[in-house]
């Protein structure tokens, strides 16, 4: 269920600026994979409100930046962590 440190770092490097661009208060906290190795969990946090975002791990690897941004934006909006205007 745990990713290698290198993999974690690469995901972090990719998602941290993306989250900050959406909302500077959004912090990247942690990332882990489930036992099926299909679901990637990205834990982000704004103030004291954590959110667990779900990404398809296989698609994530080849997902274009725009699509990744849309997927994350959509989930954050659904959880009320991002204004619909952004």
């Amino acid at each position: 269920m745990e990713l290698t440190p290198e993999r974690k770092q690469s995901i972090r490097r990719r998602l941290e600026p993306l989250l900050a661009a959406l909302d500077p208060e959004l912090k990247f906290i942690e990332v882990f994979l489930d036992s099926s190795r299909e679901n990637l969990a990205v834990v982000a946090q704004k103030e004291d409100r954590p959110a667990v975002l779900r990404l398809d791990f296989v698609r994530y690897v080849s997902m274009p930046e725009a699509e990744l941004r849309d997927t994350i934006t959509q989930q954050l909006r659904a959880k009320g962590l991002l204004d619909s205007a952004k």
Partner: protein
Amino acid sequence: MLEEDGEPHMWRWLKEFLIGSPLETASLHEQRLPKKSALAVLASDNLSSTAYATEEILLALTAGGTAAFLVPAYYSIPIGLGIGLLTLLVVISYGQTMYAYPTGGGAYTVAKENLGVTSALVAGASLLIDYVLTVAVSVTAGIAALTSAFPSLYSHRVALCLVALTVVLLANLRGVRESAAIFLGPVYLFIFSAYALVIVGLARYWMGATPAAAPSPAAASGEILWNFALVFLVLRAFASGCAALTGIEAVATGVKIFQPPASRNAALTLYILAAMLGTLFLGITALAYFYGVSPRAEETVVSQLGRTVFGAGPVYYVLQGATMLILILAANTSFTGFPRLASVMAQDRFLPRQLANLGDRLVFSNGMALLSLVAAGLIIAFDASVHNLIPLYMVGVFTAFTLSQAGMVIHWRRTRERGRHWRASVNAIGAVATALVLVVVAVVKFMHGAWLILVAIPVLVLACRRVRLHYYQVGREMSLADYEKPEELRHTAVVPVAGMNKMVLGAIEYARSISKDVVAVTVNVGGDDRDQLLEQWHAWAPEVPLVVLESPFRSIHRPLLRFIDEMEGWRDDDVITVVIPEFVAKSWWHQFMHNQTALWLRAALLFRPHVVVTSVRQHMKK
């Protein structure tokens, strides 16, 4: 710290010291009482009313305790005879009830079988309320007798009432046999001293040793004009004197405490009780008239009679002491009636099931505890004032009498037993008579507090229906009729941690044994040990991801609960298992220093439907 059965040493020692060692279920039959002991347990409420029923009649006839009677004092005699006749009807009715319904339950059972559920609930609710009031009134009246003798204690009356209530509760929690043994002496002392008062008083009167009754001004002038006000006054006197009937119901409810043949023994005990009640009540009423005693604020009628008949010597003080004890012990009858009625209603799922469970000493200890709690609440709310509590009395018991007798009329119509016609007639007359008394009591005492009971009864009936509906819904939801076996459960185990130690590693290992997906979570409230924790984590549990949440407002609870909620929706798991690492300290007082977050977390997660909470405990050796 703990025994094998999980009870702490100290708690077990205290419990055994206060209420005794647990009794085997097999010895239940040994707890059943012979008539002599059962009478002591069940008679105190009813017999205690002879201490004040006559006074209530005289107070009503004098319109509030002035010495001058508004109607002739001898009216108390026919009123007393009328109450005696009503007692006879009610007692015959309950005697028949005990044979027809030997499992106990009294008015509730009779009404349920013959009049339907709503009537049964009205009867049950009325009696439960009345049992609570009996406890509150009798304890308060007993302590009032004490504070009259020692006025300096008056300001502590509420605390004294609560102490007396606790003593009666503990005595009853020791079991039926032990409480009977404790209360046998005071009850029989009262019976003997009250009979001595009546017999010696009547003998002295007939031997002409005392003056004849002083005629009342109204009687002397011959100006008795019957009008509405006078009828109301007489009815009020009759209704007030009907306090003598309270407590009869308890024998019918408590059939099961009698040795076999239970119905026969219970009926015989009831007849003996009624005979004693009738003779003592009528004897005291007659004596009050013969000796020209009128109610006085500073001294009770029984006390005045005792002083006149015996003089202010030791016999008088024995009578007064016994009267005070019987007033307090009147509460004891409710400790038999309330838990048994509550258990019958709980078996029917109208009250929480715990009330049907027998405790360590084979008594319904949960019912007793509930009765004490509610009575204590009433005593505190009414500032331990008998005057404030008395108007609440009697509405409930006469509602139950009426429904019980009406139910018995239907019962006789359904059976083919010999004598059913005259039996039905007795019950019908009794039902009409008690219904009339009920109306009079409700009207006369409405503004003085009876309205509260008229509101409380339907509220309790509604609550009982809601309890039953809840059990019905639980039964339906738990039913296997529509059960579909799920596919393999998929769940993530979330382990909240505060640091890295043996206890945490134990919880992590357990979580890994039940799920392939384990996540640890901690909340950083601004300390500088974050990096140290991460370092330890990578050393000891590198295969389990650790989520370190930040808490800018220093709350551990909010981020943690939100994270668990988020995990619940993350990948459509069937359930989330929250594995909580916990300390179990060696000593009970050490326990208070640990696990506060765990306690809180378990409570907070209680109502989340897809969250399973489990504790992995680290037992401390020292």
